[in-house]
């Protein structure tokens, strides 16, 4: 009788695979499925196609009321590289070196035109259809909140040149403003003949200091600023100015009611300039042509001053009235004065990529269940947490890299093509562009991980895809592409849900000195860019934790 030795495998017992082997295994699963590779390729290719088609033109009303298409002029660029509005009426003389200007403002009045026949619906620019009412206009008197009248030192009379100004506004008190974006509050309150304001600007090289005063003897310094673009030595222009932005009422942050061009008139007294070469050489210049709808009398758009007429009169020694229309401020694409378009247009194609990465993430998890592959996976690597971590890491890395390539190509190339197609896109700083590229790639990668986590929980690809698309796209459409919800509800959706991450795509900061629709549909989000991405990361993390817990608790 032979005794059989019990079977012993000749393969030495091994420890469970390390995390690196798991990463390798998951990477192999990702790269060897043809559909997954096609999906990654689509992420790169799809977004670019979406920006190819947009062509823009601006219509100009001609004599007789018919409209004519012209290429949209791009906004002028300020000294710091940002798009600006620079149209005003400037009464100036040359200031060859250091010097100062002092003036007393004894009154600010205004007039505006509006279309009485055709009310403007709130949120009028939603859906990409901003309509300038072209009906007959009526005239009314009154200043705009940010009508500006005051004294100014400006590098030149060309649009976009550097400046510093002390000014009195329609209803925001006395301010010092410089280089379009700078704004500091001075004295508050309305101006009248009985309650005038004295203003003073002092140039010392490229540093300009602003003062205001209630009586002309006690002066308060409002601010002293290095004005970028103002030559440290050399001739600049000094004088009086008036500007008044487009009349547009706002209700609850949304445009409501008719809009039309406006005019502000300032009354000055005791104007004194030091440091100029001669005296009495004042010259009036209308900087920028001013944009606006047609005005009564069938004149053309772009010259509202033919009725709301920019002009100046010297009424005595050192006494002037100056009337001007236009806006001198940073360009806000959603403001009524702007014809600029937002950089975000170039990223609209990213939504195609987002759909693809969501499907990819959900399938990467759920496909294991469909064919029973998950049992092989767990036989090879018993630690379920580690498998989930490896899967997420591989998916995150793959979608982030592919997303980075996609956005890194799409944004610069898309912007170039959009501008070549006549779309007046406002420029952004290089750092903002880098933030939008990296942030959008992160958004794609974390959305894929969220889909992976939900796919792991649901174990069925369709359920996971539907859930993630519903959670991301429906709030986005309700908040950004429709006006069904009030602004406050839209902003809450963009704080609480994964769509908060789209704040990484906000290209321009809001400016309190420019009245505009700062709404999600105009590209302004309630959270700061990185906080918004943090909200998505939190959602993905919670979903991953829940998926891990379920994975440990459930049989496969």
């Amino acid at each position: 009788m032979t005794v059989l030795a019990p079977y012993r495998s000749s393969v030495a017992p091994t420890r469970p695979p390390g995390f690196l082997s798991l990463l390798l295994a998951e990477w192999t699963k990702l790269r060897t499925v043809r559909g997954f590779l096609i999906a990654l390729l689509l992420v790169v290719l799809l977004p670019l196609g979406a920006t190819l088609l947009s062509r823009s033109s601006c219509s100009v009303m001609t004599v007789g009321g018919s409209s004519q298409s012209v290429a949209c002029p791009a906004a002028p660029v300020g000294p710091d590289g940002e798009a600006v509005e620079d149209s005003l009426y400037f009464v100036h003389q040359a200031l060859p070196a250091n010097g100062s200007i002092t003036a007393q403002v004894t009154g600010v009045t205004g007039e505006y035109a509006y279309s009485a026949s055709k009310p403007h619906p709130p949120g009028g620019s939603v859906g990409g259809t901003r309509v300038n009412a072209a009906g007959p206009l009526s005239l009314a008197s009154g200043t705009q909140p940010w009508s500006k009248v005051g004294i100014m030192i400006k590098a030149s009379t060309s649009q976009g040149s550097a400046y510093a100004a002390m000014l009195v506004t329609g209803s925001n008190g006395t301010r010092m403003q410089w280089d379009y974006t700078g704004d500091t509050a001075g004295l508050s309150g309305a101006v009248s003949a009985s309650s005038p304001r004295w203003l003073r600007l002092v140039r010392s090289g490229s540093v300009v200091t602003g003062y205001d005063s209630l009586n002309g003897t006690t002066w308060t310094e409002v601010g002293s600023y290095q004005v970028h673009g103002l030559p440290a030595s050399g001739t600049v222009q000094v004088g009086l100015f008036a500007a008044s932005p487009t009349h547009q009422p706002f209700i609850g942050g949304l445009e409501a009611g008719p809009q039309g061009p406006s005019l502000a008139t300032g009354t000055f007294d005791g104007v004194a300039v030091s440091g100029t070469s001669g005296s009495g050489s004042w010259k009036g210049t209308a900087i920028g042509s001013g944009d606006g709808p047609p005005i009564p009398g069938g004149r053309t758009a772009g010259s509202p001053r033919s009725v709301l007429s920019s002009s100046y009169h010297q009424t005595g020694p050192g006494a002037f009235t100056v009337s001007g229309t236009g806006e001198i401020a940073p360009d806000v694409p959603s403001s009524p004065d702007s014809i600029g378009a937002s950089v975000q247009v170039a990223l609209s194609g990213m939504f195609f990529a987002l759909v693809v990465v969501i499907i990819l993430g959900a399938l990467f998890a759920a496909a294991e269940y469909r064919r029973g592959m998950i049992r092989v996976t767990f036989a090879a690597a018993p630690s379920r947490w580690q498998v989930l971590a490896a899967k997420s890491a591989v998916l995150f890395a793959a979608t982030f890299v592919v997303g980075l390539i996609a956005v890194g190509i799409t944004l610069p190339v898309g912007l170039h093509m959009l501008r070549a197609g006549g779309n007046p896109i406002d420029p952004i700083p290089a750092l903002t562009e880098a933030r939008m590229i990296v942030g959008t790639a992160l958004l794609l990668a974390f959305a894929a991980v969220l889909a992976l986590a939900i796919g792991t929980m649901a174990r069925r690809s369709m359920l996971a895809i539907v859930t993630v698309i519903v959670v991301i796209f429906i709030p986005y459409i309700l908040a950004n592409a429709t006006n069904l919800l009030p602004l406050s509800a839209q902003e809450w959706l963009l704080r609480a849900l994964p769509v908060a991450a789209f704040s990484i795509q906000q290209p321009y900061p809001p400016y309190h000195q420019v009245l505009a629709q700062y709404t999600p549909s105009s590209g302004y989000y309630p959270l700061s860019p990185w906080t918004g991405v943090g909200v998505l990361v939190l959602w993905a993390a919670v979903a991953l934790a829940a998926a891990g817990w379920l994975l440990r608790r459930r049989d496969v």
Partner: protein
Amino acid sequence: MTSAVASAAASPATTAGRGPGLAASRLLLALHAEWTKLRTLPGTFWLLAATAVLTCALGVAVSAAYHCTAGYCSPADTGADPAKLALSGLYLGQVLAACVGVLVVGGEYGTGMIRVTLAAVPRRLHVLAAKAVVVAGVTLAASVVAVGGSLLAGRLLLPGKGLSAANGYVVLSLANGTDLRACCCAVLYLVTIALLAAGIAAAVKNSGAAIGIVLGLLFLFPIVTAVIPDHTLARHLNQISPLQAGSDAQTTVGLHALPLTPWQGMGVVALWAVGALILGGLVLRFRDA
């Protein structure tokens, strides 16, 4: 399920003749088989119930969130469309309707059931036609409940939010021609989207991919048209987008500003569904299952 399949399978053997009456009875048998399959799946009822409930719920949430600034509540100031506000739950409802359409067709590809179905009913267009009728029937039932509930919620909620007769609004009612049209179009829209989804699922033969394509088709158009500065292109995209054409069909206020009239909008959605069903039919007819 087995008995229905068995009777459908037995039918060609028992009635071996030819003729127009026979084609009709074959179609009826296929229809009966599809109805049995759908009715005996555990998820169907819940999906249809979710379509009705979630549509109403989102409509209630949007109606409840609505407010207008005191003094600026006239129709000219708000531009609000009460019917469209009440029906905003359709953003969610169409997703679930699309799921119904995808599951009825794509579910069979996931399990391999499609091979049994085609063995029992070899005429493939009969299978697709039967599935389309069943999908349309059950979605119609769910949509009537969803739209009716949304309308009722809007009628009860919106007057309290400033959209009242005192402010110059017409209170929602099926007795108004425009509201009736909006509601009919909303019901038809959900049914049409379910058929579109069924067609796409037959064309791509995979539930996950099909629902991804349908939802992409629905949601990408409005997102892209909201940001592009080219108004002419945006208007054309709005005209061909199924979601926005459907939304035009549910509009009761400011019709002159729409890129399509309501019934033209409904026609665009129907064209998408017909196109998808034709594509699905061609794939089913000429390719292996």
